[in-house]
């Protein structure tokens, strides 16, 4: 018994050491963000001699952080809301309608997941450019197109757990399809909606390539602004690292508040 407990302790210590190793990139980013340029040059690994906040205030201004944060927030919230709204509707209709046509449409959505973004990127930008849709509205619509397949797939799977008898009972009570869906089915889909939301938020919030092709200047999201900012400050690591730290903080806060949901959502999304 004693030996077993000692083994447990050794495993735990090993685990903590690996976790510290895992965190070391963040440690290095953080401590060097507080240093001056010359101090980074002389000592990368240690704590700063004096903690300067100037890097942060300059990075905050140069990143135009309030503006880029609001842009990211708007694009993410709007896209994810629309994805949930329309994908849950489609998932419901496709699962309940047992016709051949419905099965074929479902297969089309699933098949679309095989097409990688880079295969449609060039014509997509060209076509949307021709109709003047390279703007936030166009971007949100694109996210619906790219995100809906997986979301419908997840909703379609979750519908199996919601008995048809509920629909039938509501129909007898005089409800139409629209009412049945929003008043009865959609509330019951809440767990899968959380999963769909988490997966799409992680993707859209962090996406760089698509917005870089669609958005410019005033509408730039955080990753986009980060790219320009970084290009401007190569070799000025004190500022670059302060900028990176600022960009990460909102994500870390959300993660610590909602980590249980996030980990569960990611698991469900991958395993199902």
């Amino acid at each position: 018994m004693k030996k077993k407990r000692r083994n447990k302790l050794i495993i735990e210590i090993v685990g903590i050491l690996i976790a510290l190793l895992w965190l070391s990139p963040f440690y290095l980013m953080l401590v060097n963000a507080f240093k001056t340029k010359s101090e980074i040059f002389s000592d990368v690994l240690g704590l700063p001699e004096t903690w300067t906040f100037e890097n942060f205030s300059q990075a905050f201004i140069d990143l135009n952080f309030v503006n880029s944060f609001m842009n990211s927030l708007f694009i993410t919230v709007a896209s994810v809301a629309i994805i949930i709204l329309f994908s849950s509707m489609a998932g419901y209709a496709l699962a309940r309608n047992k016709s051949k046509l419905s099965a074929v449409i479902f297969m089309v959505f699933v098949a679309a997941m095989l097409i990688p973004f880079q295969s449609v990127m060039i014509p997509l930008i060209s076509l949307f450019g021709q109709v003047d849709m390279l703007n936030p509205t166009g971007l949100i619509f694109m996210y619906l197109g790219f995100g809906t397949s997986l979301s419908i797939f997840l909703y379609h799977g979750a519908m199996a757990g919601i008995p048809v008898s509920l629909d039938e009972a509501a129909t007898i009570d005089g409800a139409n399809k629209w009412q049945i869906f929003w008043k009865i089915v959609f509330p019951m889909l809440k767990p899968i909606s959380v999963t769909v939301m988490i997966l799409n938020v992680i993707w859209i919030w962090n996406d760089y390539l698509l917005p870089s092709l669609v958005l410019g200047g005033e509408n730039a999201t955080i990753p986009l602004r980060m790219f320009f900012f970084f290009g401007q400050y190569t070799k000025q690591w004190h500022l670059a690292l302060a900028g990176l730290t600022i960009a990460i903080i909102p994500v870390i806060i959300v993660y610590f508040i909602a980590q249980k949901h996030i980990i569960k959502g990611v698991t469900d999304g991958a395993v199902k």
Partner: protein
Amino acid sequence: MRNRSVSFWLFVTPTLLALALVVFVPFIYGFVFSFTDWNGLSANEFIGLANYVELFQDKEFLNSIWFTIKFAVASIVLVNVIGLGLALLVTQRMRSSNILRTVFFMPNLIGGLILGFIWQFIFVSAFDAVGSALGIEALQGWLSTTETGFWGLVILNVWQYAGYIMIIYIAYLESVPEELLEAAEIDGANSIQRFWNVKFPLVAPAFTISLFLTLSNAFKLYDQNLALTNGGPFNSTQMVAMEIYNTAFSESDMAYAQAKAVIFFILVAAVALTQVYYNKKREVDL
């Protein structure tokens, strides 16, 4: 009945329309234009298979495919071995299990671009500092050669995705019935035997999922590539996704880039269909 089909279309049309306009129309449009000399706005001439013939002699493109395949192989092995290791570690009943899980998963929530920039600093500055402090030459000059660029990308990818793959393994490990392990223990199986003979077969489906997830992630990688090495030195660490992007938007050779994108699609789809095939086969076997 008519009413019912009206509501069916009402529910399905918005997403179907978005999918068609965002994915299928560009896909077909691009496929057609890959046989022309399209420059992004207009095509003047139908040139048949010329773009495809050219790309199979394009050293830079072939190099990027080869580099991507090597990267994918190294990533798959390391991400899965380390991901499974982490999963086994945090499923030991320890006080710190939850915190460890949280830490290992954390990199997945941050965008590849930002992670790439952080690691650029680590490889260029921190590695260099450690290298010169301890006199290890191998730690100096990272990202300035093809080899260190390659391993830099692999390390970044492993650090980011191992925690994600860990989550998948955990889901399967936790579904292994406790009684089964206890029974094995009573029968005298040691912890290694319990792993290979009891846990391992039950966790096998997680391997298929994780393998293909890692593979398709590795193939589509762009942000990390851009932020960490930007293809350098001399485009030698450029992966397929970046090569296509540069052909299209730096060299403005749209039709040619689209032909590469079609080949890229065939590669990625082949990988995904193989996965579907194996999953189906496994279900039958069960």
